């Protein structure tokens, strides 16, 4: 399958981040088209395109928009989730740095469609470069009359606020994000009510991922048929795949949904040093890992689900055979323990407990009994926590155990650093050897 750069098409143009640069490639054409049509027509187009949310869950975007009650007399809000903090996920930040106007244009069109006069872009606090780029794009768009009162003479008003988070993974969970945006401590909210009915300031709110929104101008500009020529029936369109790990050229590869990991690996220049693929995760640390035998499965929402994992954020992490799976899982659990918001018992206590046990395994002090205990503990979290962070925390271990039980067995007597020399995975391993 060939790559299909759309959002990433002109990333080699160093002026793309400016209004003029973006416009020179047809930017803001879609906005004019959208504003001339009807909000409901825009929603219908997005619905027809079959676009699914790129934030991880893959929820149909047009359908989400259509949940917003109309003519309810309340203000509506669009909130862009740009908190990208998932280990392994690195696609929204590059989009915001290279092509911020695609996001801004998408925000304006989406706001028009859902009849919102205020939009918020909630950006992860640790990436000031991205925040600056987006803020600059918003400023330029405002100066050009694309944001503000009576945009392009359409009578539509919109204000966009760029908001910086304060460094919490949980604030990427949409309802925690809303609390954070409202100035509270970020913890997920009880649903119902769902944000589409009572979200930001108890008003109807749509929350979408950066990449989801950045798709909108292209869909409006080029049409449903164009979009649907890529991907599959259930996973139409293309995706910004961010490949990381032990590959020669880690980076962004925009390709139709349905491309395989093997193909993506080729684009990424193959495995570093020709070492074998040991395990890989299609979309961030929160989805179950796969192995080399799964490299030919199409990267679609449905095929990944059939393989027992999820497409997630579509940001594959690839690990070669120098890596200890025990160590990788321990690191991820340390992350979840650190990021657990503390609201619910299974995640708060479970991540604390599991991490402690895993750290023993890492040092060769695990036991067979604890191999089972860990499985049990993960079952006590999965599906029982308040939000998906808990589910995510319960994901790495069972998948790792399924494919690499022997490594956990070994970690009952031998420290993993002895089984897997960490120096073998260093980027400079080869250089060091030479």
């Amino acid at each position, binding site marked *: 399958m060939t790559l299909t750069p759309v959002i990433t098409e002109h990333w080699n143009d160093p002026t793309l981040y400016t209004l003029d640069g973006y416009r020179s490639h047809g930017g803001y054409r879609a906005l004019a088209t959208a504003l001339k049509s009807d909000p409901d027509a825009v929603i219908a187009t997005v619905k027809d395109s079959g676009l699914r949310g790129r934030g991880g869950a893959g929820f149909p975007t047009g359908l989400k928009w259509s949940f917003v009650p109309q003519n309810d007399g309340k203000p509506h809000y669009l909130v862009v989730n740009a908190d990208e903090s998932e280990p392994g996920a690195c696609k929204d930040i590059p989009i915001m740095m290279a092509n911020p106007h695609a996001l801004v244009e998408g925000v304006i069109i989406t706001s028009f469609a859902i009849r919102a006069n205020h939009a918020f872009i909630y950006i992860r606090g640790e990436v000031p470069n991205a925040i600056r780029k987006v803020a600059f794009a918003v400023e330029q768009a405002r100066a050009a009359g694309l944001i503000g009162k009576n945009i392009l003479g359409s009578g539509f008003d919109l204000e966009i606020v760029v908001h910086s988070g304060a460094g919490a993974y949980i604030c990427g969970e949409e309802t925690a994000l809303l609390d954070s945006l409202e100035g509270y401590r970020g913890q997920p909210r009880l649903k119902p009510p769902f944000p589409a009915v009572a979200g930001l300031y108890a008003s109807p709110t749509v929350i979408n991922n950066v990449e989801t929104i950045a798709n909108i101008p292209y869909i409006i500009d080029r049409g449903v048929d164009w979009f649907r020529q890529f991907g599959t029936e259930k996973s139409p369109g293309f995706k910004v795949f961010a490949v990381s790990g032990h590959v020669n050229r880690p980076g962004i590869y925009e390709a139709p949904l349905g491309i395989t990991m093997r193909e993506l690996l080729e684009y990424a220049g193959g495995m570093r040093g020709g070492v074998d693929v040991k395990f890989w995760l299609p979309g961030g640390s929160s989805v179950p890992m796969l192995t080399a035998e799964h490299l030919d499965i199409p990267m679609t929402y449905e095929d990944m689900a059939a393989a027992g994992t999820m497409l997630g954020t579509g940001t594959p992490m690839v690990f070669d055979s120098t890596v200890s799976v025990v160590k990788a899982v321990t690191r991820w659990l340390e992350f979840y323990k650190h990021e657990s918001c*503390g609201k619910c*018992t299974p995640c708060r206590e479970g991540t604390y407990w599991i991490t402690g046990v895993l750290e*023993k395994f890492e040092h060769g002090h695990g036991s067979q009994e604890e191999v089972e205990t860990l499985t049990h503990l993960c079952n006590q979290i999965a599906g029982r926590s*308040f939000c998906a962070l808990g589910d995510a925390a319960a994901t790495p271990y069972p998948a790792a155990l399924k494919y690499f039980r022997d490594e956990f067995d070994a970690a009952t007597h031998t420290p993993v650093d002895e089984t897997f020399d960490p120096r073998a995975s260093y980027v400079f391993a080869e250089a060091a050897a030479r």
Partner: protein
Amino acid sequence: MTITNEPGAQVAVPTDLVNVTIDGVEMQVPKGTLVIRAAELIGIEIPRFCDHPLLDPVAACRACLIEVDGMPKPQPACAQMVAEGMNVHTQHSSQVAAEAQAGVMEFLLVNHPLDCPVCDKGGECPLQNQAMSVGRPETRFTEEKRTFPKPINVSAQILLDRERCVSCARCTRFAEQIAGDPMIELLERGAQQQVGTADDEPFDSYFSGNTIQICPVGALTSADYRFRSRPFDLVSVPTTCEHCASGCSLRTDYRRGVVTRRLAWDDPEVNEEWNCDKGRFAFRYQSHGRINAPLVRENGELRVASWPEALATAAGIFEAARGNAGVLVGGRSTVEDAYAYSVMARAVLATDDIDFRVRAMSDEEAGFLAAVVAGSPVTTTYGSLENAPLVLLVDIEPEDESPIVFLRLRKAARGGTRVVTVASHLTTGSEKMNAELVACAPGDEVRALTELSADIRTALAVPGAVIMVGERAAAVPGAFTAVADLAKSTGAALVWVPRRAGERSALDAGALAGLLPGGRPLTDATAREEVARIWGISADRLPQPGRSGRALLENAARGDYAALLIGGVEVDDLRDADLLRAALESETSVVAISTHHNEVTAAADVVFPSGVVTEKSGTFLDWEGRPRPFGQVFHEALTTSDAGVISAIAEVMDATVEGSVTGIRGQIGALGPWRGARTTRTAVAAQPAAAGVRLATWRQLLDLGLMQSDEPHLAATARPTVARMSAATAAANGITEIATLTGPAGAISLPVEITEMVPDVVWVPMNSEGSRIYRDLGLGFGDVVQISAGGRP
């Protein structure tokens, strides 16, 4: 199950019923019912920690997970609403639910210190109980537990042992949703999540103690009770709070003859499950500084006497004073005690000179109470407040003066009730009730009420609207007339909300000149007949209407009474303290019945000890007029009630005054409600407001009140004493940081807090450290006060 907030609605009949099946039991419950509540209806107890029926669900602890057909994951029963046809499986019929619950239980114990043997909650702890029923017998957790330095003070009274906390957020939700004092919050995240306060902003909420009670573990304790006792060593007695007219149901726990703690007890119609910190923590007065034997005066000195001697002396005094005695009951007596004073005055002392009001009072007020309040049936209730379209507050600050009224009004306001307050400024309490202000300088109430906006008047005419008037209105000529007129013209319900627990009790017992028990006019022949028959005397032996209020005190000050019978009265609580002081110094003989030594007992000729609430049974009438009976905690007490003392004196005088609680209740029951004509009130005109800066004042909930003595931790959570005035008033008087207030009795200097309020008014607390208005200034509510800049607080 559903209580609507529709104006005028009383109890909504559930119309929308849905069919659900829980563990195979089919049932119908109102739509919107939570599964956990529905299960309770058929006796199924689902484990829970964060769930509390009076708090919004959070579904945080996950202890209550159940299985619902058609739902992929177990659901929290505390947040899952029933739906038509829903099939629910609890731990009793679902392996998934049982395992999920057991899993959560195991997790909850991972970081729990399990220091049950030294924990206050041990023995009554939901975590302990549920660990016994749902938990694993042995732990699989061998890693290191998370610990915190222990404990920390979230206020002077409330301590927090963070490692015991299960993060259920009951305390924080209570503070935010019920009390409106979100001064505690969950902080940090993950396993470090903990309850805390902002720096230097302690949890000084009037309702803070409730968090201890609803904490499902021993994480929150009180400085007073911590480590004092184990629950299983305590004996519990259901009681009623004696501190105010809110009428809270309490549970008093004692050990070895000493009360160790008091808890709010459930009464859905009154205090729900809450009470205030005064009611919870202020009870040491019961055992400190008590009078424990009768005293008689000999050669100018009081000395201990035997009961027979004291009774004979008192009887002698009263024999000589028949027809010329005065009786002061005080505002803290039970219905039964007040009734005995009432009988003693009329049937034995042949006088109608009797009053219970030890505070600012007026004849207009007495007339109002007799005509509108005394003996009236319970019609306007806490429930009425919750359903009222509008509640108008006149001269009452519920958060300070009737805390449960405050909580219920706050609940009502959250449900859409409009609260309007006629006051000098919007207090934080008013803000928590989302109240609108009808700005009114003290003394201008009549004008404010006559000039009420058309919009408020219209709202008052909607069925269910309520006007609440506080006892302060007695200081404002015409105020009671104006509220009564307003109620009459709009049709709004009118209630009088006194501060003390015994005021309505005494009023209905007839402890006010001109009134016989049950609101019967003393001048009414039928009323006289009814009462005389029950008292076993002939009606013509009942006296003619006598003096109350200032007239009574003035007569006493002149030394014109032969004898005075005085119950629990603090001289400085009287606006006219000097009059009573003069009486005490006069030749008049004084018989005092009191729990504690005070100025009255010091001057009395005979002093009888009387029992505090733990030593007797009785009844208080709350502001609704609802009887709040309570039982005796200490049966072996050596004291008797005021009624017991009075009955014994009467016996020596060869008269009969019923002294037992059951006997008195029998008499009141036999009398029944008064069905005849009530006295009519005489309209009193407003007086033109005096020029100058006027004093606004009331007693704060936590202050120098005698029943709060010896409670240092409680006192430390009281609000600081400040003087409030508007920026304009401060500027006009050159006041910046400190103001000096001067009155006929002296001056006080207080730090100033600039407050948005009506001009030319200064507010100070009435009886707080550094601000005892009657004593220090000789001024009261609505009086003109001199203010100036500077001074030393």
